[in-house]
């Protein structure tokens, strides 16, 4: 039984904001299904008594003092932008408001 359907890949591509062609959707569904089945084995060994490790080195409380540093010159900040206007980044119309 496939774990990842074509529809699921389409939903995930939407979440990840990647336009996929029909053939990509089909191909990815097949590939991801194999990969997911292979990696799903982790849940078998990850029992409740095992704590999760998110950082390889156990550090904590890494803080910096509240001091301002030199900002980027505005021209550098904008230099790579596909479009700018009046010192701002110009982007296509935003339909969904968060």
């Amino acid at each position, binding site marked *: 039984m496939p774990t990842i359907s074509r529809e699921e890949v389409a939903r995930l591509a939407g979440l990840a904001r990647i336009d996929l062609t029909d053939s990509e959707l089909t191909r990815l569904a097949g590939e991801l299904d194999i990969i997911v089945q292979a990696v799903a084995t982790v849940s078998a060994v990850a029992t409740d008594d095992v704590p999760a490790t998110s950082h390889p080195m156990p550090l904590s409380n890494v803080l910096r003092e509240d001091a301002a540093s030199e900002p980027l010159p505005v021209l550098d900040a904008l230099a790579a932008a596909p479009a700018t206007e009046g010192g701002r*980044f110009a982007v296509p119309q*935003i339909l969904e408001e968060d």
Partner: protein
Amino acid sequence: MSTAPDLVDYDDAVARYDPVIGIEVHVELGTVSKMFDGAPTVFGAPPNTQVTPVSLGLPGSLPVVNRTAVESAILIGLALNCQIAEVCRFARKNYFYPDVPKNFQISQYDEPIAFDGWVDVELEDGTVLRVEIERAHMEEDAGKNTHVGGATGRIHGAEYSLVDYNRAGIPLVEIVTRPIAGVGERAPEVARAYVQTLRDIFRGLGVSEARMERGNVRADVNLSLRPSPDAPLGTRTETKNVNSFRSVERAVRYEICRQAAVLDAGVTVIQETRHWHEDTGTTTSGRVKSDAEDYRYFPEPDLVPLAPSREWVEELRARLPEMPVVRWHRLQTEWGYSDPEMRDVVNAGAVELIETTVAAGATPAAARKWWMGELARTANTEGVDLGALSVTPEQIGELQRLVDSGRLNDQLARQVLAGVLAGEGSPQEVAAARGLGVVSDDGALLAAVDEALAAQPDVAAKVRAGNLGPVGSIIGAVMKATRGQADAGRVRELVIERINQG
């Protein structure tokens, strides 16, 4: 725009439905650098001049946590009677939006720095209500979009948008209440008073300027209705970015009326985000909360856990100032102000100013008279805060001492104050430079009195006949002749003395 929805009359709505509110308040901390790097935070700077590779989310950049922001978050937690986490982490909230430079926001998810607290909120009539706090967590602000083109300048109809990332990365603390139930028709007032209380706490702690008009404090208001207090909670809506106290109150009121109409129509309320419109006092439908809203939170791998030591927390607790409400009660008693008087003082942001003025030698009554009278009018005319006027509380204290010692009367004192505000120096200096001072030399005054009596013989006659009514016009003439520098009380005495002699 769709047609305006039906609204149920407010009194009718709250008579038949029990509102439950929940409020999320975001406060921008007043740090000099951003949450996760040294980019400066100067308000009102030209666009994209307060950015670094980190706040622009450039490839390769990494975050490092601002110590002062953490301390501010802990202080807020402590002021709200929260537990401070022994260990907590930052998490990534993943969503695509042009003003979020990394397309994820560094926030906290299941491990907030502060949780399980409460705050007492005082309502207009003195009722104190305890609001339970679920959590307070740290996160970073987003940039600002300006929508260009289209008729309204609003998001819909805009042809494109311009993004300024100066605000991106400014530290925020988000404070989330537990559901506030059982307040019935007072829900709007409670919501407003709660946000106001938080604002005062932020200022009292010195963690933020907490200026509503600058968006330093922003509220999201959740509201649901249920048929009775015993019924399960209804479906809620979340009205975003309500950025003034008055709007908080209005937004809750509006949603109560709107949701009541929806329920009356037998329709279920849609769980959604709604947008507040200050101009119309209404909310409109935004994004529907659905399964598609999947933020894929996971622990921020570029940051390490935060484990505030108990020593650090206690050190911060010792730094906690007296809570605003407690302090105001103490000061009100000390100063002998009525409830409305004290409320006006608090709302005008004049508590500290009056406190310092009193410390500088003015009576509380005199201090209040200056700050809530003459100075409040000046500030209002100039459209600035009281604290921004170019006069210090110490100078007001000095001015009042000049009045108390009889060297200035009220009218002269106002002239001296005008000089101080104009930057001419201290009250003493202005009085000296402008030659303002009460003339207490009887000889000089008597000459003026005689002159006034001679100029108004009919008035003098009436007074002589025992009718003291018109004496004021004689006094007025003397005051005018002495350019206001006479002590009006003494003038009156001299006028009566002179007439009786005559």
